């Protein structure tokens, strides 16, 4: 299933989700039950995951340690071209 997330305002962006059939079915079911669009449900789910991970203290500590330890390496990689 391919689903385009519509952009309703300047705060949103278009994304294309390629979902496996089972996941797409669940997404559609949740959206139907809750009376919302598939886009809204997907956007909220992703945002909730990001927020949960942002609050994961162990994840954050490991990340900060890694970035600090390898700062010189990351600086050398900084100039890669898009």
């Amino acid at each position: 299933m391919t689903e385009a997330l519509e952009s309703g305002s300047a705060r949103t962006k278009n994304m294309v989700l390629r979902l496996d059939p089972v996941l797409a079915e669940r997404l559609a079911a949740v959206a139907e039950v809750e009376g919302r669009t598939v886009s809204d449900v997907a956007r909220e789910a992703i945002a909730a995951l990001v927020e949960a991970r942002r609050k994961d203290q162990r994840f954050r500590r490991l990340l900060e340690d890694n970035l600090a330890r390898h700062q010189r390496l990351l600086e050398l990689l900084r100039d890669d071209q898009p």
Partner: protein
Amino acid sequence: MITLDVADLAVIAGHVLGISPGAALDRLDLAAAQAALAETEVVETGPAETGPADGGPADGGPADGRPADGRPADAALAATVLIRALLRHRPFPDRSQQVAVAAGLQFLALNGWQADLDPPGATVMVIEGLASGQLSPADAAAWLLPRLSSSAPPAREKPMRTRLRLRALDPPPRAGIHTPVTGFLPFTDDAHDAVVFAREEASRLGLDHPGPEQFLPALIATGDGVAAQVLRRLGISPEAVRQRVAQITGQHQPPYPSGPGTPLAMRVMPRAVGEAVAHGHDYIGTEHILLALFRAGDDTAAQALASLGAGEREVRDAITALRGEPGPIRHAPRRARKPVPRDDEIRRLRREVARLCDLLREHGIEPGEGDRKSA
């Protein structure tokens, strides 16, 4: 092996780019991220082994004896596959090499491995080789492997992590327990899995709530959890537990009272909270649920374990030995205390006991006679 998901990538990119995770999400090419992560899942489907590898300087687990997740060779290959996939698909167009390397390092760290990438110039050449296709992930993994060492993760279960592919569309999972006294205590991954297993088993049996006889097999089914490790150390196999629970519950019809608000069922989790608090932990692990089963007001699990040679004392001692930390306050050996405690210590202990009693009452549990005596 802990894998990264889209949310992880957003947080990592946010740090690297110096922007918020939300802003990073806005810049994310979701299709590219999914394509990159899908490439890493091919590696994840290989056999998951735990413990030292067959050789090489990166062998061995952390200093506390707990092995890192997977063999170092597997971790090195998975990391280089991830980096190569992120370099190819570029889910974050800006500074994609930095994001890819940071993601690879974070993947290793989450799985208990640390990479020594000095001198950085050599690493840059490897990354560029991966990006251009001149180096394969296997080549890069061979270079990375001798630079890996165990990073000795803390002796606790993995924190609760969700995977976008399977859970993103569910309502937010109940990933912990909140009480007015303790605040929110998150489940570890293994504890969450055990709760889910127990609920599914209870549902299969037509029960509204899982009871000790559902929790115990569920705990031992989470093979990496502290509870499962402890029971294994005590020589108790999952099959033996299942058989013994079936024997015991078969003697009581029905084995467990069903219906909303079953008092017995509702006691397991509050007791688990109590165990976590008593140990000074800010999360609920499988070991807390296991200990709660001994005090949940139903002796099915306790009977099953005792008949297999694991009474409450043995289980507590095994948990303490596994974790290498002091036991809970209320179970501290009396001989270890000072003969005449200081006044401030007595006041502290009284406050602690009062707090624990309040916690139990909060959940409708009146502390037992033994508790009052000790208080």
